[in-house]
Protein backbone atom coordinates (compact mmCIF):
# COMPACT_ATOMS: atom_id res chain seq x y z
CA UNK A 1 0.00 0.00 0.00
CA UNK A 2 2.68 2.41 1.05
CA UNK A 3 4.97 1.55 -1.84
CA UNK A 4 2.07 1.88 -4.30
CA UNK A 5 1.44 5.36 -3.02
CA UNK A 6 5.13 6.19 -3.33
CA UNK A 7 5.14 5.05 -6.90
CA UNK A 8 2.42 7.55 -7.65
CA UNK A 9 4.89 10.31 -6.96
CA UNK A 10 6.55 10.60 -10.33
CA UNK A 11 9.40 13.02 -10.51
CA UNK A 12 9.86 15.75 -8.01
CA UNK A 13 7.23 18.18 -6.97
CA UNK A 14 8.18 21.82 -7.18
CA UNK A 15 6.01 24.13 -5.17
CA UNK A 16 6.40 27.77 -5.91
CA UNK A 17 5.87 29.95 -2.91
CA UNK A 18 6.18 33.53 -1.84
CA UNK A 19 6.49 35.11 -5.25
CA UNK A 20 7.86 38.55 -4.61
CA UNK A 21 5.91 41.27 -6.34
CA UNK A 22 7.48 44.37 -7.87
CA UNK A 23 5.76 47.14 -9.76
CA UNK A 24 6.38 46.66 -13.49
CA UNK A 25 8.80 43.86 -12.75
CA UNK A 26 9.67 41.32 -15.42
CA UNK A 27 8.18 37.90 -14.91
CA UNK A 28 10.83 35.38 -13.85
CA UNK A 29 9.78 31.76 -13.63
CA UNK A 30 11.53 29.33 -11.28
CA UNK A 31 11.15 25.56 -11.47
CA UNK A 32 13.06 22.90 -9.57
CA UNK A 33 13.14 19.15 -10.14
CA UNK A 34 15.37 16.30 -8.97
CA UNK A 35 17.02 13.64 -11.14
CA UNK A 36 15.46 11.00 -8.95
CA UNK A 37 11.85 10.19 -8.04
CA UNK A 38 12.92 9.03 -4.60
CA UNK A 39 16.10 9.26 -2.60
CA UNK A 40 18.18 6.67 -0.77
CA UNK A 41 20.34 7.23 2.34
CA UNK A 42 23.85 8.53 1.54
CA UNK A 43 23.28 8.48 -2.23
CA UNK A 44 23.96 11.91 -3.80
CA UNK A 45 21.44 13.20 -6.33
CA UNK A 46 21.04 16.34 -8.39
CA UNK A 47 18.49 19.13 -8.39
CA UNK A 48 18.02 21.30 -11.48
CA UNK A 49 16.83 24.85 -10.83
CA UNK A 50 15.57 26.46 -14.02
CA UNK A 51 15.25 30.24 -13.95
CA UNK A 52 13.46 31.77 -16.92
CA UNK A 53 13.49 35.55 -17.24
CA UNK A 54 10.96 37.28 -19.48
CA UNK A 55 12.15 37.50 -23.13
CA UNK A 56 14.64 40.36 -23.63
CA UNK A 57 15.71 40.34 -19.98
CA UNK A 58 18.82 38.67 -18.59
CA UNK A 59 20.14 37.26 -15.32
CA UNK A 60 23.78 36.87 -14.30
CA UNK A 61 26.64 34.36 -14.17
CA UNK A 62 28.71 33.78 -10.98
CA UNK A 63 30.83 36.78 -11.99
CA UNK A 64 28.27 39.26 -13.26
CA UNK A 65 30.95 41.38 -14.98
CA UNK A 66 31.11 45.17 -14.60
CA UNK A 67 27.61 45.36 -13.12
CA UNK A 68 24.80 43.14 -11.88
CA UNK A 69 24.59 40.45 -9.22
CA UNK A 70 25.25 36.72 -9.42
CA UNK A 71 22.25 34.40 -9.48
CA UNK A 72 22.15 32.50 -6.19
CA UNK A 73 20.35 29.54 -4.68
CA UNK A 74 20.38 29.32 -0.90
CA UNK A 75 19.30 25.97 0.54
CA UNK A 76 17.51 25.33 3.77
CA UNK A 77 17.94 21.56 4.15
CA UNK A 78 16.90 19.03 6.78
CA UNK A 79 19.62 17.92 9.23
CA UNK A 80 22.39 15.87 7.66
CA UNK A 81 21.73 16.98 4.08
CA UNK A 82 24.58 18.82 2.32
CA UNK A 83 24.26 20.92 -0.85
CA UNK A 84 27.26 21.32 -3.17
CA UNK A 85 28.20 24.51 -5.01
CA UNK A 86 25.75 25.87 -7.55
CA UNK A 87 26.88 24.89 -11.05
CA UNK A 88 26.42 27.59 -13.67
CA UNK A 89 25.89 26.79 -17.37
CA UNK A 90 28.14 28.47 -19.96
CA UNK A 91 27.22 32.17 -19.94
CA UNK A 92 26.97 34.75 -22.71
CA UNK A 93 28.59 38.14 -22.88
CA UNK A 94 26.41 41.25 -23.08
CA UNK A 95 28.00 44.56 -24.03
CA UNK A 96 26.10 47.67 -23.00
CA UNK A 97 26.60 51.29 -24.11
CA UNK A 98 29.69 52.77 -22.47
CA UNK A 99 31.69 49.57 -23.08
CA UNK A 100 30.10 47.94 -20.04
CA UNK A 101 30.39 44.16 -20.03
CA UNK A 102 28.03 41.74 -18.32
CA UNK A 103 28.04 37.93 -18.21
CA UNK A 104 24.75 36.13 -18.01
CA UNK A 105 21.79 34.43 -19.60
CA UNK A 106 18.60 35.08 -21.51
CA UNK A 107 15.86 32.49 -21.76
CA UNK A 108 15.44 29.35 -19.65
CA UNK A 109 18.66 28.78 -17.68
CA UNK A 110 19.23 25.60 -15.72
CA UNK A 111 21.58 25.54 -12.74
CA UNK A 112 22.55 22.23 -11.15
CA UNK A 113 23.36 21.34 -7.58
CA UNK A 114 24.36 18.02 -6.01
CA UNK A 115 22.70 17.17 -2.72
CA UNK A 116 24.01 14.45 -0.45
CA UNK A 117 21.55 12.93 2.02
CA UNK A 118 22.71 11.60 5.40
CA UNK A 119 23.70 7.94 5.71
CA UNK A 120 20.69 7.21 7.88
CA UNK A 121 17.17 7.97 6.67
CA UNK A 122 13.88 6.25 7.37
CA UNK A 123 12.36 4.59 4.30
CA UNK A 124 8.85 5.85 3.64
CA UNK A 125 9.58 9.26 5.05
CA UNK A 126 9.12 12.30 2.76
CA UNK A 127 11.99 14.77 2.67
CA UNK A 128 11.34 18.40 1.82
CA UNK A 129 14.24 20.44 0.44
CA UNK A 130 13.63 24.16 0.71
CA UNK A 131 15.55 26.83 -1.17
CA UNK A 132 15.44 30.46 -2.19
CA UNK A 133 16.65 31.51 -5.62
CA UNK A 134 17.65 35.16 -6.00
CA UNK A 135 18.73 37.14 -9.04
CA UNK A 136 19.03 40.53 -10.63
CA UNK A 137 17.04 40.70 -13.84
CA UNK A 138 18.06 43.46 -16.26
CA UNK A 139 17.10 44.88 -19.62
CA UNK A 140 17.10 48.69 -19.79
CA UNK A 141 16.46 48.67 -16.06
CA UNK A 142 17.28 46.13 -13.39
CA UNK A 143 14.92 44.45 -10.98
CA UNK A 144 16.06 42.18 -8.16
CA UNK A 145 13.90 39.18 -7.43
CA UNK A 146 13.72 36.10 -5.26
CA UNK A 147 11.52 33.07 -5.05
CA UNK A 148 11.28 30.33 -2.46
CA UNK A 149 10.62 26.82 -3.67
CA UNK A 150 10.49 23.28 -2.34
CA UNK A 151 11.32 19.86 -3.71
CA UNK A 152 9.70 16.94 -1.86
CA UNK A 153 11.03 13.41 -2.30
CA UNK A 154 10.18 10.12 -0.60
CA UNK A 155 12.92 7.96 0.93
CA UNK A 156 13.39 4.47 -0.55
CA UNK A 157 16.08 1.74 -0.55
CA UNK A 158 17.00 2.17 -4.22
CA UNK A 159 16.71 5.57 -5.98
CA UNK A 160 14.58 5.77 -9.12
CA UNK A 161 15.95 8.02 -11.92
CA UNK A 162 13.64 10.79 -13.12
CA UNK A 163 13.70 13.76 -15.50
CA UNK A 164 16.67 12.32 -17.36
CA UNK A 165 16.28 14.32 -20.64
CA UNK A 166 16.22 17.60 -18.71
CA UNK A 167 19.36 16.65 -16.78
CA UNK A 168 21.17 15.51 -19.93
CA UNK A 169 20.42 18.86 -21.61
CA UNK A 170 21.48 20.78 -18.49
CA UNK A 171 24.69 18.79 -18.17
CA UNK A 172 25.52 19.51 -21.84
CA UNK A 173 25.47 23.24 -21.06
CA UNK A 174 27.88 22.85 -18.14
CA UNK A 175 31.59 23.58 -18.48
CA UNK A 176 34.05 20.73 -17.84
CA UNK A 177 36.40 21.10 -14.89
CA UNK A 178 39.49 20.29 -16.99
CA UNK A 179 40.70 21.14 -20.52
CA UNK A 180 39.36 18.73 -23.17
CA UNK A 181 41.96 17.03 -25.35
CA UNK A 182 40.15 18.25 -28.50
CA UNK A 183 41.37 21.73 -27.77
CA UNK A 184 45.08 20.96 -28.00
CA UNK A 185 47.43 22.95 -25.82
CA UNK A 186 46.52 26.41 -24.65
CA UNK A 187 49.62 28.54 -24.45
CA UNK A 188 49.65 31.49 -22.07
CA UNK A 189 52.02 34.38 -22.74
CA UNK A 190 52.48 37.01 -20.08
CA UNK A 191 54.12 40.38 -20.45
CA UNK A 192 54.44 43.39 -18.21
CA UNK A 193 52.45 46.59 -18.70
CA UNK A 194 52.79 49.93 -16.95
CA UNK A 195 50.23 48.94 -14.32
CA UNK A 196 50.05 45.15 -14.39
CA UNK A 197 50.35 42.36 -16.91
CA UNK A 198 49.02 41.56 -20.38
CA UNK A 199 47.99 37.97 -21.03
CA UNK A 200 47.62 36.17 -24.35
CA UNK A 201 45.94 32.76 -24.50
CA UNK A 202 46.39 30.79 -27.73
CA UNK A 203 45.05 27.43 -28.81
CA UNK A 204 46.93 25.24 -31.25
CA UNK A 205 43.70 23.56 -32.41
CA UNK A 206 42.58 24.93 -35.79
CA UNK A 207 39.09 26.21 -36.61
CA UNK A 208 37.99 27.10 -33.12
CA UNK A 209 36.64 30.38 -31.83
CA UNK A 210 37.59 31.09 -28.21
CA UNK A 211 35.86 33.18 -25.56
CA UNK A 212 36.95 33.79 -21.99
CA UNK A 213 34.92 34.52 -18.87
CA UNK A 214 37.04 35.40 -15.81
CA UNK A 215 35.78 34.61 -12.33
CA UNK A 216 35.81 37.40 -9.80
CA UNK A 217 39.01 37.66 -7.74
CA UNK A 218 38.70 40.35 -5.05
CA UNK A 219 41.25 43.13 -5.60
CA UNK A 220 42.00 42.08 -9.19
CA UNK A 221 40.93 44.19 -12.14
CA UNK A 222 40.61 42.25 -15.40
CA UNK A 223 39.99 44.49 -18.38
CA UNK A 224 40.00 44.77 -22.13
CA UNK A 225 39.26 41.12 -22.90
CA UNK A 226 39.55 40.85 -26.66
CA UNK A 227 40.04 38.35 -29.49
CA UNK A 228 42.55 39.57 -32.10
CA UNK A 229 41.99 36.26 -33.90
CA UNK A 230 39.54 33.37 -33.35
CA UNK A 231 42.22 31.26 -31.67
CA UNK A 232 43.47 33.97 -29.31
CA UNK A 233 42.25 35.80 -26.22
CA UNK A 234 44.03 38.79 -24.78
CA UNK A 235 43.33 40.68 -21.60
CA UNK A 236 44.98 42.99 -19.11
CA UNK A 237 45.04 42.38 -15.38
CA UNK A 238 46.27 44.48 -12.52
CA UNK A 239 45.98 44.58 -8.76
CA UNK A 240 43.64 47.38 -7.65
CA UNK A 241 45.29 50.25 -5.76
CA UNK A 242 45.80 49.40 -2.11
CA UNK A 243 44.59 45.82 -2.50
CA UNK A 244 46.34 42.48 -2.13
CA UNK A 245 45.26 39.33 -3.93
CA UNK A 246 43.79 36.56 -1.78
CA UNK A 247 44.80 33.92 -4.36
CA UNK A 248 47.69 33.29 -6.76
CA UNK A 249 45.55 32.15 -9.67
CA UNK A 250 42.72 33.57 -11.72
CA UNK A 251 40.02 30.97 -12.39
CA UNK A 252 38.65 31.43 -15.90
CA UNK A 253 36.06 29.72 -18.03
CA UNK A 254 37.32 29.13 -21.58
CA UNK A 255 34.52 28.64 -24.08
CA UNK A 256 35.05 27.35 -27.61
CA UNK A 257 33.03 26.53 -30.67
CA UNK A 258 33.52 25.80 -34.35
CA UNK A 259 34.60 29.15 -35.83
CA UNK A 260 32.61 28.46 -39.00
CA UNK A 261 29.30 28.32 -37.13
CA UNK A 262 27.07 31.32 -36.85
CA UNK A 263 26.41 32.30 -33.32
CA UNK A 264 23.40 34.27 -32.16
CA UNK A 265 24.74 36.23 -29.21
CA UNK A 266 22.78 36.22 -26.01
CA UNK A 267 20.51 33.29 -26.76
CA UNK A 268 20.67 29.89 -25.21
CA UNK A 269 18.88 28.15 -28.05
CA UNK A 270 20.96 25.62 -29.98
CA UNK A 271 24.07 26.60 -28.06
CA UNK A 272 26.82 24.53 -29.62
CA UNK A 273 29.55 25.97 -27.42
CA UNK A 274 31.65 23.93 -25.01
CA UNK A 275 33.67 25.19 -22.11
CA UNK A 276 36.02 24.26 -19.34
CA UNK A 277 37.47 25.82 -16.22
CA UNK A 278 41.17 26.46 -15.89
CA UNK A 279 43.44 28.70 -13.83
CA UNK A 280 45.91 31.33 -14.91
CA UNK A 281 48.87 32.15 -12.69
CA UNK A 282 48.88 35.60 -11.14
CA UNK A 283 52.19 35.13 -9.34
CA UNK A 284 53.91 37.83 -11.41
CA UNK A 285 51.22 40.32 -10.42
CA UNK A 286 51.08 39.70 -6.72
CA UNK A 287 54.86 39.59 -6.33
CA UNK A 288 55.87 42.93 -7.75
CA UNK A 289 52.88 45.08 -8.52
CA UNK A 290 51.10 45.50 -5.23
CA UNK A 291 51.61 48.73 -3.38
Amino acid at each position, binding site marked *: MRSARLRCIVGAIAILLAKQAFAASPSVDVKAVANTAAIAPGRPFQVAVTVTPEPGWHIYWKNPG*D*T*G*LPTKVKWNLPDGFVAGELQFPIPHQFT*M*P*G*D*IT*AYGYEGPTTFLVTITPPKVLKAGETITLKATASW*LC*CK*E*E*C*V*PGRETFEVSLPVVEQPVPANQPLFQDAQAQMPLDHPPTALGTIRV*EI*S*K*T*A*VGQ*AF*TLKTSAPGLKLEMFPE*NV*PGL*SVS*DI*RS*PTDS*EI*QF*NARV*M*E*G*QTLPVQELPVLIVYRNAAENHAAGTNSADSRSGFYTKISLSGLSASDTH
Partner: protein
Amino acid sequence: MRTKVMVASLLALSLAAFAADSASSPTAKLGAPAPGFTLDDQTGKPVSLSDYSGKIVVLGWINRDCPFVQRHLKANTFNNLNAKYSDKGVVLLGIDSSHMHTTEGNAKTVKDYSLSFPLLNDAKGTVGHLYNAKTTPEMYIVDKDGTLVYQGAIDNNADGDLSHPTNYVEKALDEMLAGKPVSQPETKSYGCTVKYAR
Protein backbone atom coordinates in the same frame (compact mmCIF):
# COMPACT_ATOMS: atom_id res chain seq x y z
CA MET B 1 39.00 52.86 -25.32
CA ARG B 2 39.09 49.33 -26.69
CA THR B 3 42.58 48.73 -27.98
CA LYS B 4 43.01 46.18 -30.72
CA VAL B 5 46.59 45.09 -31.16
CA MET B 6 47.93 42.59 -33.61
CA VAL B 7 50.56 40.57 -31.92
CA ALA B 8 53.55 39.48 -33.93
CA SER B 9 55.71 38.56 -31.00
CA LEU B 10 55.88 38.77 -27.27
CA LEU B 11 57.98 41.91 -27.58
CA ALA B 12 55.41 43.55 -29.81
CA LEU B 13 52.70 42.61 -27.37
CA SER B 14 54.49 44.13 -24.43
CA LEU B 15 55.27 47.31 -26.38
CA ALA B 16 51.69 47.63 -27.59
CA ALA B 17 50.27 47.06 -24.16
CA PHE B 18 52.67 49.60 -22.72
CA ALA B 19 51.61 52.13 -25.33
CA ALA B 20 47.94 51.53 -24.57
CA ASP B 21 48.48 51.99 -20.85
CA SER B 22 50.71 55.02 -20.99
CA ALA B 23 48.89 56.92 -23.74
CA SER B 24 48.03 60.32 -22.29
CA SER B 25 44.30 60.29 -21.73
CA PRO B 26 41.99 62.92 -20.29
CA THR B 27 40.00 60.36 -18.32
CA ALA B 28 40.09 60.10 -14.56
CA LYS B 29 42.98 58.20 -13.00
CA LEU B 30 43.72 57.51 -9.38
CA GLY B 31 46.51 59.70 -8.08
CA ALA B 32 46.13 62.15 -11.00
CA PRO B 33 44.27 65.47 -11.16
CA ALA B 34 40.51 64.80 -11.36
CA PRO B 35 39.13 65.96 -14.73
CA GLY B 36 37.18 69.19 -14.48
CA PHE B 37 33.54 69.49 -15.56
CA THR B 38 30.52 71.76 -15.48
CA LEU B 39 26.99 70.35 -15.26
CA ASP B 40 23.58 71.77 -14.40
CA ASP B 41 22.15 70.98 -11.00
CA GLN B 42 18.47 70.16 -10.48
CA THR B 43 17.57 73.87 -10.61
CA GLY B 44 19.42 74.44 -13.89
CA LYS B 45 22.33 76.24 -12.18
CA PRO B 46 25.76 75.30 -13.61
CA VAL B 47 28.04 73.61 -11.09
CA SER B 48 31.76 73.12 -11.73
CA LEU B 49 34.20 70.87 -9.93
CA SER B 50 36.52 73.90 -9.75
CA ASP B 51 33.88 75.77 -7.68
CA TYR B 52 35.03 73.61 -4.77
CA SER B 53 38.80 73.85 -5.07
CA GLY B 54 40.37 73.60 -1.62
CA LYS B 55 37.60 71.27 -0.47
CA ILE B 56 37.25 67.50 -0.55
CA VAL B 57 34.64 66.60 -3.18
CA VAL B 58 32.73 63.31 -3.19
CA LEU B 59 31.09 62.41 -6.52
CA GLY B 60 28.31 59.83 -6.41
CA TRP B 61 26.75 58.37 -9.56
CA ILE B 62 23.02 58.01 -9.00
CA ASN B 63 20.06 56.77 -11.03
CA ARG B 64 16.75 56.81 -9.20
CA ASP B 65 15.44 53.90 -11.30
CA CYS B 66 18.19 51.55 -10.12
CA PRO B 67 17.19 49.28 -7.21
CA PHE B 68 20.71 49.45 -5.70
CA VAL B 69 20.46 53.26 -5.64
CA GLN B 70 16.89 53.11 -4.35
CA ARG B 71 18.05 50.98 -1.44
CA HIS B 72 20.65 53.63 -0.52
CA LEU B 73 18.22 56.52 -1.10
CA LYS B 74 15.67 54.89 1.20
CA ALA B 75 18.38 54.18 3.79
CA ASN B 76 19.57 57.83 3.50
CA THR B 77 23.13 56.65 2.80
CA PHE B 78 23.99 59.77 0.77
CA ASN B 79 22.19 62.26 3.05
CA ASN B 80 23.84 60.71 6.11
CA LEU B 81 27.24 60.95 4.44
CA ASN B 82 26.59 64.60 3.63
CA ALA B 83 25.36 65.36 7.16
CA LYS B 84 28.38 63.68 8.72
CA TYR B 85 31.03 65.46 6.65
CA SER B 86 29.57 68.72 5.27
CA ASP B 87 30.95 70.78 8.18
CA LYS B 88 34.38 69.18 7.76
CA GLY B 89 35.14 70.70 4.38
CA VAL B 90 33.59 67.89 2.35
CA VAL B 91 31.18 68.52 -0.54
CA LEU B 92 28.91 65.81 -1.98
CA LEU B 93 27.76 66.05 -5.59
CA GLY B 94 25.33 63.54 -7.10
CA ILE B 95 25.69 62.91 -10.83
CA ASP B 96 23.06 61.23 -13.01
CA SER B 97 24.40 60.02 -16.38
CA SER B 98 21.17 58.21 -17.34
CA HIS B 99 20.49 59.26 -20.93
CA MET B 100 16.72 59.49 -20.36
CA HIS B 101 16.85 61.75 -17.31
CA THR B 102 16.33 65.53 -17.33
CA THR B 103 17.09 68.46 -15.03
CA GLU B 104 13.36 68.61 -14.19
CA GLY B 105 13.38 64.89 -13.41
CA ASN B 106 16.38 65.40 -11.16
CA ALA B 107 14.47 68.16 -9.31
CA LYS B 108 11.77 65.57 -8.61
CA THR B 109 14.36 63.03 -7.42
CA VAL B 110 15.87 65.62 -5.05
CA LYS B 111 12.38 66.44 -3.74
CA ASP B 112 11.11 62.85 -3.50
CA TYR B 113 14.12 61.68 -1.52
CA SER B 114 14.77 65.01 0.30
CA LEU B 115 18.34 65.01 -0.98
CA SER B 116 20.57 67.47 0.89
CA PHE B 117 23.08 67.78 -1.99
CA PRO B 118 22.91 68.83 -5.66
CA LEU B 119 22.04 66.28 -8.34
CA LEU B 120 23.82 67.13 -11.59
CA ASN B 121 22.47 66.24 -15.01
CA ASP B 122 24.93 64.35 -17.24
CA ALA B 123 22.37 62.85 -19.63
CA LYS B 124 24.93 63.12 -22.47
CA GLY B 125 27.21 60.85 -20.44
CA THR B 126 30.24 63.12 -21.00
CA VAL B 127 31.33 63.25 -17.36
CA GLY B 128 30.39 59.61 -16.80
CA HIS B 129 32.73 58.59 -19.61
CA LEU B 130 35.40 61.03 -18.36
CA TYR B 131 35.37 59.25 -14.99
CA ASN B 132 34.73 55.81 -16.55
CA ALA B 133 31.71 55.36 -14.30
CA LYS B 134 30.13 51.97 -14.96
CA THR B 135 27.65 51.40 -12.18
CA THR B 136 25.12 53.18 -10.02
CA PRO B 137 26.04 53.74 -7.31
CA GLU B 138 29.73 54.44 -7.99
CA MET B 139 31.77 56.81 -5.85
CA TYR B 140 34.82 59.04 -6.38
CA ILE B 141 36.72 61.25 -3.94
CA VAL B 142 38.75 64.28 -5.04
CA ASP B 143 41.10 65.65 -2.37
CA LYS B 144 41.72 69.32 -1.50
CA ASP B 145 44.44 69.55 -4.13
CA GLY B 146 42.14 68.22 -6.87
CA THR B 147 43.70 64.75 -6.97
CA LEU B 148 41.48 61.69 -7.44
CA VAL B 149 42.09 59.56 -4.34
CA TYR B 150 39.22 57.05 -4.33
CA GLN B 151 37.08 55.29 -6.87
CA GLY B 152 34.74 52.36 -6.47
CA ALA B 153 31.88 51.06 -4.39
CA ILE B 154 30.06 52.98 -1.68
CA ASP B 155 30.34 49.96 0.62
CA ASN B 156 30.90 46.20 0.68
CA ASN B 157 27.18 45.43 0.79
CA ALA B 158 26.25 44.56 -2.81
CA ASP B 159 23.57 42.09 -1.71
CA GLY B 160 22.22 44.48 0.92
CA ASP B 161 22.18 41.74 3.54
CA LEU B 162 25.08 42.80 5.81
CA SER B 163 24.08 44.22 9.18
CA HIS B 164 27.38 46.12 9.60
CA PRO B 165 28.69 46.99 6.13
CA THR B 166 31.95 48.91 5.67
CA ASN B 167 31.28 52.26 4.01
CA TYR B 168 34.43 52.68 1.90
CA VAL B 169 33.77 56.38 1.27
CA GLU B 170 33.42 57.21 4.97
CA LYS B 171 36.50 55.13 5.74
CA ALA B 172 38.52 57.04 3.12
CA LEU B 173 37.18 60.43 4.31
CA ASP B 174 38.02 59.58 7.94
CA GLU B 175 41.57 58.71 6.90
CA MET B 176 41.92 61.88 4.82
CA LEU B 177 40.58 64.09 7.62
CA ALA B 178 43.06 62.45 10.00
CA GLY B 179 45.86 63.38 7.60
CA LYS B 180 46.47 59.78 6.55
CA PRO B 181 46.66 58.34 3.04
CA VAL B 182 43.59 56.45 1.80
CA SER B 183 44.31 52.80 2.61
CA GLN B 184 41.86 51.39 0.05
CA PRO B 185 41.85 53.80 -2.89
CA GLU B 186 40.13 51.40 -5.29
CA THR B 187 37.30 48.90 -4.89
CA LYS B 188 35.02 47.13 -7.34
CA SER B 189 31.80 49.07 -7.54
CA TYR B 190 28.51 47.22 -7.75
CA GLY B 191 25.04 48.04 -8.97
CA CYS B 192 23.17 48.71 -12.18
CA THR B 193 24.81 49.61 -15.45
CA VAL B 194 25.04 53.39 -15.99
CA LYS B 195 22.35 53.95 -18.63
CA TYR B 196 24.43 55.67 -21.28
CA ALA B 197 22.88 56.59 -24.62
CA ARG B 198 23.35 53.99 -27.35
